[in-house]
Structure formats: structure tokens, C-alpha cells
């Protein structure tokens, strides 16, 4: 872990947080559209897509903000990683079932599901893993970490 520059960790944290923060905006603005995007994956029992469309964007907003500001980073990383794995499973099953549907990821308007999206998520998962195994908590404001302890 020492070979990773301490500040690279902060950069990864901010980049990952910004991506989640950015992805949440469109979904918060138009939850109905996000619900339809979720429904197009045909994996959830009918009706649940609305609950997810209401809650998930706010979860992304809070963990994105948390990662950027350095608030409850450990919990944020676990949720981030879980979401990325879940997104990849959703996209993979859609590809395998031959669905030519919009990703609904919130990053790029009209982006379709595809291998490149899975690859993108794996890159982000790699970033999350680096954060998870970090041994120094730089610029994390809560829970308060005493830098001299590191």
C-alpha cells in the first residue's frame, strides 16, 4: 500500500465521489425516467423499480458527497463497491438476454448497456478497492482521524 501516493488516494476519492454525485443529479431531477430505465432491465418484481428510483439517487448523492468531503469514507466505499457490482450484474444479464436498452446510469444521456460500461465499472471498482485498503486517512473529516496516529 505504501507505494500509493497518499494524495493519489485523495484524488481517487474525489474522482469516485464526483462520478457518483454527477450520476445522481439527473436521476433526482427525473425519478420517473430513472424508474422506467430500471424497469427495462426486467429483473425486479413489478413496482419495486419506483422505490429504487426514489432512494438510489439520494444514496449516490450522499456517498458521493461523503467521499469528496471525507465523511464516513469506509461506509461509503462499501456501498459504492456494492452498487458497482450490482450495476455490473444488471448490465451483464441485460447483455446476455439481448436487451438493447439505455443504461440509465445518469452519466451520459442515451448511453446503451454494453461491455464498455462493465469495463468502466470495473475501473471504478479498482479505485474503490484502493480506497478500501488505504492505510492513511488523509483529509478525512469524520470520523475525526488524528493524522499523527497514521
Amino acid at each position, binding site marked *: 500500500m505504501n507505494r500509493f501516493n497518499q494524495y493519489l488516494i485523495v484524488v481517487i476519492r474525489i474522482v469516485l465521489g464526483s462520478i457518483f454525485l454527477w450520476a445522481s443529479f439527473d436521476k*433526482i431531477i427525473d*425519478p*420517473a*425516467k430513472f*424508474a*422506467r*430505465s430500471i*424497469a*427495462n432491465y*426486467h429483473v425486479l418484481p*413489478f*413496482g*419495486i*423499480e*419506483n*422505490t429504487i*428510483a*426514489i*432512494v438510489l*439517487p*439520494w*444514496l449516490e448523492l*450522499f*456517498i458521493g458527497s*461523503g467521499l469528496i468531503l471525507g465523511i*464516513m469514507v*469506509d*461506509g*461509503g466505499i*462499501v*456501498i459504492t463497491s456494492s452498487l458497482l457490482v450490482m450495476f455490473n450484474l444488471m448490465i451483464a444479464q441485460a447483455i446476455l*438476454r*439481448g*436487451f*438493447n*436498452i*439505455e443504461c440509465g446510469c445518469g452519466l451520459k444521456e442515451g448511453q446503451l448497456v454494453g461491455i464498455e460500461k462493465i469495463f468502466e465499472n470495473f475501473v471504478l471498482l479498482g479505485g474503490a478497492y484502493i480506497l478500501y485498503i488505504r492505510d492513511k486517512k488523509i483529509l478525512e473529516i*469524520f*470520523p475525526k482521524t488524528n493524522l499523527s496516529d497514521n
Partner: protein
Amino acid sequence: MNFSSSLHQIYFYLAISFIISFVINFSRTDRIPIIAVPLKKIEDIGQINEKMSNAIIREISIDIAKDLFDKNMLFVDARSEEYYIKGHIPKALCNDNLDSLITEMDIHIAIDDGFVVYCSDDDCGSSEELAYSLQEQGFSNIYLFKGGWKQWVDNNLPIESK
């Protein structure tokens, strides 16, 4: 609560997200129901309205779609033009650009006239997406043919290619 524990942090993130999201959703004018309500299905051709003042999207079966085709109702193809060129329901409109599509539709129908939207099959989702986009633009009488192009072709109904 001990916030130095990852698990407690996760609980906190989940709790705050649930609470804030439900409160915000409840307070907004364009709120969505917590559990999705399925689109109303039309079982009989008699339920078809020529004009509709209240905006509504309703689902139709292949039989109703065929009847509406025979009655010369406008069909809108929600697939990309690439697929439309290869084959589509005769006289259906298609345009990847929403504004251009609306301009074309305005030539054929009034804002409260009925029309059918379809895409490739039950799994595509783009017909529903287009139906809601057109509804936002003021079209009020929209029929969604979920079986789409695949079901139309499987039933040996007329097709044309451009």
C-alpha cells in the same frame, strides 16, 4: 451510534437516503408512487378514444394494434432509424430527433388525436420512453403497443421498408 464502524456508517447512509428521498418525493409535484402502477391495458377496441383531453398512455395488444392500423391510426416507430429503414409498420413515422418527429406528427394528427407507439419487442423500453416524452410535449392520447415490431412480423401483418 459508533461512526468509526463501517457497518454503522452504512446504516447511516441508508437511513438518511431513505428518509430524505421519501420526504422529497412526497413533497414534489411530479412525485412518483413508491410502488409503480402498471399501465392501463385496453382489452376491447370500444375503449379506444378518437380524442382524449386527459393525458394518458394505455397499453394495447396485437389485435387492437391491427384494428387501429386498419382504421389508419398513426403509428410511431420508437426504434432508431437504422432499424426503421430495414422494415417497419406501413406509414409509421420515425425520427431519431424528437423535435423533428413532433413536427412530422403535427402534419398528420392533432395534439389530442390517438396514435400508437411501438419499438422492437416487449423488452425494448424505448416505446415507453418515447410515449412519455411525447406526453410531456402535450400529446394526450397515446397507445403503447408493447409487442412491437417482433410481434407484428410474427403475425404476418403488412410491413414496408424504406
